[in-house]
């Protein structure tokens, strides 16, 4: 019997029609995966962390029709508070009981065979697999034969529910916006499972470049990625790196980095830093500010 699947997405102030279009792509991909017997029953579970719900009755009904026609079930949960990426997914996961969970960014659109390819990849000792992002492919390296990689991106990754529960889901108390996927991947690997890249499972992730081919992050993105860098180094027993990063941040003129230092100090004072893991450095990789070897 084919394994059941829940596709989970967390909204925060998204444009409804973009989500409808993404939902159509998801429903189409699930329909094809069902036809190939790669998944069985499936659910699209959307959690909404926005101050005001993204969907009105009409757009919710539109998605429900798309999902139902593809043989699935649609659920829409309004949280009424911003739980963050990992917190939202942790809250959604117990609402269903599928064998597989697909973590999918709301601004990501899957290709027709994406769900099937991921489901076909997550077998045996592979507990987590991510798709290849377009148009900007993530530069983290992978084994071209086996697909093994350091971590799987939370933009579009499929995991086995039993493993998700075994490792306790996302650490949303430590990581609000970034690196919860890196941390989840490393804990999956510490538990003895494999994390692999499935390049044939494509997903369009709406990222843009400046005319100089650069990415200009928002101030929130700068803050939360900087904060995550400190907490990830701490959690994976790299106090040497924590000290190095904090020293660098203290010397930065930009206030955003000093706020990160303050947040770390506050965690130390309140005793709320995470329990350090991987003291032998079996899975964690800190390479030139990245969490994997990068191809470029």
């Amino acid at each position, binding site marked *: 019997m084919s394994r059941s699947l829940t596709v989970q997405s967390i909204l925060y102030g998204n444009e409804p029609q*973009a989500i409808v*279009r993404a939902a*159509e*792509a998801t*429903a*189409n991909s699930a329909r*094809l995966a069902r036809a190939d017997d790669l998944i069985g029953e499936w659910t699209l579970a959307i959690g909404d962390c926005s101050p005001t719900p993204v969907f009105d009755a009409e757009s919710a009904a539109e998605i429900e029709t798309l999902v139902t026609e593809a043989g699935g079930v649609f659920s829409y949960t309004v949280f009424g508070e911003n739980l963050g990426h990992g917190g939202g997914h942790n809250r959604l996961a117990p609402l269903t009981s599928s064998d597989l969970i697909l973590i999918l960014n709301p601004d990501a*659109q899957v*290709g*027709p*065979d994406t769900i099937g*390819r991921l489901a*076909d*990849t997550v077998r045996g000792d592979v507990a987590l697999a991510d798709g290849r992002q*377009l*148009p*900007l*492919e993530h*530069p983290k390296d992978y084994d*071209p*034969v*086996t*697909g093994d990689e350091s971590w799987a991106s939370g933009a579009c990754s499929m995991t086995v529910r039993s493993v998700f529960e075994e490792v306790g889901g996302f650490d949303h108390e430590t990581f609000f916006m970034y690196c919860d996927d890196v941390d989840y991947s490393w804990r999956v690997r510490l538990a003895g499972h494999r994390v*692999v890249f*499935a*390049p*044939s499972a*494509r*997903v*369009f992730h*709406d*990222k*843009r*470049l*400046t*005319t*100089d*081919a650069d990415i200009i992050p928002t101030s929130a993105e700068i803050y939360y990625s900087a904060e995550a860098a400190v907490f990830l180094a701490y959690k994976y027993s790299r106090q040497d790196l924590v000290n190095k990063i904090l020293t660098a941040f203290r010397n930065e003129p930009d206030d955003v980095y000093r706020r990160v230092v303050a947040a770390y100090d506050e965690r130390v004072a309140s005793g709320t830093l995470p329990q350090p893991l991987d003291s032998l450095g079996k899975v964690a990789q800190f390479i030139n500010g990245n969490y994997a070897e990068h*191809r*470029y």
Partner: protein
Amino acid sequence: MEPTIDANAADTATPPSGLTLLDSFLQRDGVSDAVSDALRTIREAIVDDALGDRPFLTVLLRTQGRRLEPIKDALLCLAAQTDQDFEVVIIDHDSTESGAQGVRRVVESQPASFRTRIRIVEVVGGTRSTPLNAGIKVAAGRYIAVFDDDDLLFADWVERFHEASDTAGTRLLRAQTATQNARPEVWTGGFEGQRSLSWPHSAYAPTFDQIQHLRVNHSPFMSWAFPRGLFSQLGLTFDEALDVCEDWDMILRASLLVGVEDLPALTSIYRRWEGAATSYTVHSTDIWRASEKRVIDRLDDSAIILPQGSVSEIRELLAVYEHKDDDRDAMAQYRLMLTSRSWRWSIPLRILRNRFVRVRGTILHNWNRLHASRSGNRDGTVQNR
């Protein structure tokens, strides 16, 4: 071998009912070019009147059906556009039967709201221009863009063109394109995919420079959106005598006719392949040179109008050239100028051009008619309508 075109192979679009009779005439053998052109003009007028809601853009997507993973990437890039006011014409050129079946399967797998806006035109024979001309014949969009199956688009590719079209008049639309190195790779599961090797690089000039483009093409094909009137009214066609450089040829002829509107946005990625067959590796240096010569010869046969500022630019280039023996760094200066200075110049010049756009439009209107007529007399491909 004469090229053959099967536009009905997997045509999922339904023509307006009132056009059925006209289309049946257009598809008959033995209809003269003159009659065919006249009928096509009438058809377009009817379509304009009857629909009034042509899609903004027709995307001509060339493929040869050899590797299906890249075309899946290409279609996903289109399916995810923020502006969905477009149709897709996949021109399957010289595919094997299994390749053509593969392309059809890929199209059939797309979500319904996207699939219904995709048509497949299967073309056998001819050069790289042949599928483009076949696509233009069936294109309904107010603008036409070309997107090859191994490149990538950002989500605002259509949206940016659409926004710019509101103020661009009849000018070509030109956005910016990044380059990215990639090589073929067989993925787990035996899928013939690719591996990206570099971060996208902004390699092309942010603004169009006509003089530079006379030397070499600085604008990949998917940088452009061409107003349909270039083809339907002025009768431009891609030169099927060219083995390569068909994009450069059209860019030059079209930009010299109607001018260019630059978009300050990077909206696509041109993949540079390592270890894969591309037009650069398949065709010999001699073919490239011959095609380049044909492009330039054709322009040399015509009177052309250059954009404002070109006289000063040419004078400066000549000044550098004249002193090349006096200064061993002259060629370095020349190259520097080609790659940077004229772009900087073009900013104030573009402001001037906008001021004079109305005057230019009037001049161009009259001159275009003359040019089209002359070209039509020479090679029969451009008609004065």
